């Protein structure tokens, strides 16, 4: 664990912002010990002396504890001499939370914490990491203090009321938030906060009766190790999410949205009902379990028993098919291939794919592919192709029957000047071309594209991802000649294309069904609003991953307008909240593919969404959606009968039981991705009874066998 490296690091520099609040605020769950350092604005009454702090902590009321921490945080930021690596910082923030809770025990181990001593340093580094992380966070949001705090607090206290204290995650967040809410913590917060520390106090003191202080630290560290893997970015994202979504809401001049943002749980409709049911279920379970549960117990029980011998025997491998065997031999002997005539397109593509993957593709083979009058050319990877080779090969190619041309990563070979001689030899040189993919053509400019498009009047699908030279002029070119035929447009990562500037041309594409603007930072809510109102009715597939500026309002519009949406990718859009899932559940009823990645949706919301929309769903990706837990698992098991592919990579809260339940209940499931799920053991892997599912990402997976 990287954290343990930090033994030498002295105490944490506190946060400067905290120092503003000189008032002794009322109680909040306590934070850990820190060695308070002197600071200009710190309250003079509290002197920085470890011993004093130690004894004070042992008996002090919560308020004093709190103020000590605050002021000490404020002070040491000034003398920031310690350069912690970023990893430790990020880990430290979580650790800081954790160790804070540890410190709530009534034992007098306080005095030990400050000042030297081996075990303390670990703790202190937690604090340091935490406060640094917080100071970063604070600096970002400094301008909008009051409003944010009020809103966050309000939202937060509702959350606190709703959810049980025993769920670890909320506790950590609550402590996080409560730190900044100092100045506004009025009557509301203290009452609730006092409760939780008491619970924790009794728990902790029960446990810590034996063993030295060092063992305790180590035990706690071991126990909480799984939480160390959380990145601070997630926390920060969430915090920023909370803060900035308020900002964003303000930008859009709509009272309705502003109200909606606050009134999260009051929608009418099936989604809110489902959410309520799930929350009630959780709350009931927590009430019943009471104080007898440990930190890590799932909030919902999942009953699943592994069944031995019924499922796929992982150790037995299926014999490879003759097709695969012969393909492998072909690839090994690729030089000896004399001709590819009469080989059907599907075989050619498979062969090309394997050749490209093993980097054995060369211009001779390309010649073979281009001989005759080829109908489809699919090269996933053309980085080996030089300009001269490209010109040579394509000059003599008869392109009159070509329907599909895919030259991915062709940046090295494709430029404006060699298009007229090779691909666009005449105005009608590509008459049958319907699908064109030239990703990574970084030397292709608008002019070059114009020449190409004028030779291919029948284009239906155009993929120009990562063509960084193209501007909105390219979209104008497409719109002028292909307005009535173009169905699919992919412009992922084309950084020179400004979304708002290309909007008028984009609206002209009458039959647009698939739009991918992944990675374009200029995509904003306004853009989505405009394009969806214009073309949303016919939209079947939307890929918006990485468009960091989007908020719930975009999803609202999408849900309301795109009733025939089949596929949606909203991965890496951190500002989306549970509201988005609510909109999707009520709006897009035919959604078959949903891709989430690193989103901050809660377990309850995903569970509720699946309850409603799970039946139709065929592919679902919850990659790195960390909060996924048992509610999601239960909903998946109950509703997702048609689910074929499921990605639960990095969902560390899912246990063997949950996984087993999902796999045994989703009978159509064929592919399950579990990268990063090291918590899954053989109990699930050999105990599940679904013989047809292929599990990728754990030790049994044959992922890159063909290379």
């Amino acid at each position, binding site marked *: 664990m990287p954290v343990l490296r930090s033994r030498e690091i002295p105490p944490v520099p506190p946060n400067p912002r905290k120092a503003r609040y000189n008032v002794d605020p009322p109680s909040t769950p306590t934070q850990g010990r820190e060695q308070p350092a002197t600071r200009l604005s710190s309250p003079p009454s509290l002197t920085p002396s470890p011993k004093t702090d130690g004894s004070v902590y042992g008996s002090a009321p919560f308020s004093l504890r709190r103020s000590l921490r605050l002021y000490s945080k404020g002070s040491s930021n000034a003398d920031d001499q310690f350069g912690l690596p970023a990893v430790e910082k990020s880990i430290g923030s979580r650790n800081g939370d954790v160790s804070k809770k540890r410190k709530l025990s009534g034992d007098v181990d306080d005095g030990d914490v400050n000042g030297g001593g081996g075990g303390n340093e670990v703790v202190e580094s937690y604090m340091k990491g935490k406060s640094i992380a917080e100071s970063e966070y604070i600096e970002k949001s400094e301008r909008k203090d009051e409003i944010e705090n009020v809103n966050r607090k309000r939202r937060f206290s509702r959350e606190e009321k709703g959810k049980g204290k025993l769920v670890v995650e909320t506790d950590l967040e609550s402590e996080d938030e409560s730190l900044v809410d100092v100045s506004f913590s009025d009557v509301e917060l203290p009452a609730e906060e006092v409760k939780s520390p008491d619970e924790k106090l009794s728990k902790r003191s029960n446990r810590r009766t034996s063993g030295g202080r060092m063992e305790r630290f180590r035990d706690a560290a071991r126990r909480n190790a799984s939480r160390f893997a959380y990145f601070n970015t997630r926390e920060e994202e969430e915090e920023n999410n909370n803060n900035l979504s308020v900002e964003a809401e303000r930008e859009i001049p709509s009272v309705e949205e502003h109200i909606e943002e606050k009134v999260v749980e009051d929608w009418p409709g099936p989604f809110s009902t489902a959410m309520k049911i799930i929350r009630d279920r959780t709350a009931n379970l927590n009430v019943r379990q009471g104080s007898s549960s440990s930190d890590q117990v799932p909030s919902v029980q999942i009953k699943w028993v592994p069944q031995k011998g019924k499922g796929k025997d992982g150790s037995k491998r299926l014999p490879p098919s*003759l*097709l695969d065997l*012969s393909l492998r031999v072909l690839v090994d002997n690729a030089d000896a291939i004399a001709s590819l005539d009469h*080989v*059907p397109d599907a075989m050619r593509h498979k062969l090309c794919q394997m050749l490209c993957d093993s980097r054995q593709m060369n211009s001779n083979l390309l010649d073979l592919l281009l001989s005759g009058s080829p109908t489809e050319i699919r090269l996933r990877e053309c980085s080996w192709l030089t300009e001269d080779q490209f010109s040579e090969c394509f000059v003599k190619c008869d392109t009159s029957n070509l329907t599909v041309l895919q030259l991915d990563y062709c940046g090295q070979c494709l430029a404006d000047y060699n298009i007229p001689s090779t691909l666009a030899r005449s105005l009608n040189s590509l008459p049958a071309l319907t699908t064109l993919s030239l990703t990574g053509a970084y030397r292709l400019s608008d002019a070059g594209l114009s020449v190409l498009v004028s030779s291919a009047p029948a284009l239906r699908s155009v993929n120009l991802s990562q063509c960084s030279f193209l501007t909105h002029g390219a979209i104008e070119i497409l719109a002028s000649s292909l307005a009535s035929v173009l169905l699919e447009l992919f412009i992922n990562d084309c950084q020179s294309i400004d979304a708002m500037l290309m909007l008028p041309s984009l609206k002209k594409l009458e039959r647009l069904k698939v739009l991918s603007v992944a990675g374009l930072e200029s995509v904003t809510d306004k853009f989505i609003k405009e394009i969806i109102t214009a073309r949303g009715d016919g939209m079947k597939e939307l890929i918006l991953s990485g468009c960091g500026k989007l908020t719930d309002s975009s999803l609202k519009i999408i849900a309301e307008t795109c009733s025939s949406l089949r596929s949606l990718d909203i991965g890496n859009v951190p500002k989306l909240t549970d509201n988005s899932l609510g909109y999707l559940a009520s709006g897009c009823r035919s959604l078959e593919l949903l891709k989430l990645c690193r989103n901050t949706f809660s377990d309850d919301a995903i569970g509720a969404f699946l309850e409603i929309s799970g039946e139709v769903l065929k592919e679902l990706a919850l990659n790195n959606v960390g909060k996924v837990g048992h509610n999601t698992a239960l909903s998946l098991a109950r509703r997702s009968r048609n689910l074929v592919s499921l990605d639960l990579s990095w969902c560390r809260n899912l246990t063997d039981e949950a996984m087993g339940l999902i796999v045994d209940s989703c009978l159509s499931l064929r592919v399950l991705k579990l990268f990063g799920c090291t918590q899954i053991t053989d109990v699930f892997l050999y105990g599940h009874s679904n013989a047809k599912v292929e599990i990728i990402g754990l030790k049994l997976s044959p992922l890159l066998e063909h290379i």
Partner: protein
Amino acid sequence: MKKEETVKLISAEGMEFVIDKEAAMLSQTIRNMLTSPGGFAETEHGEVTFPEISALILEKICQYFYWNLQYSRGKETEFHIEPELTLELMMAANYLHT
């Protein structure tokens, strides 16, 4: 080998290969041909003709069927394919869905 458990695969040149039904059923195409309802000649006589597949390739395919059965029963060996045959073998394998 009893007659009921075997099928006859006939190559383009007319050469006939008699193999176990279980082995032949590894090919999805052959399985469909032999089990489809409708009174086809194949189902009745247990014979399937492949006018596009040469004898050499068909022989190799039969060898593959038996190798496959052996593999699933635990004996995992290597199936060697002569490079000269590979292209045609690949196309035949694709057609036979095996």
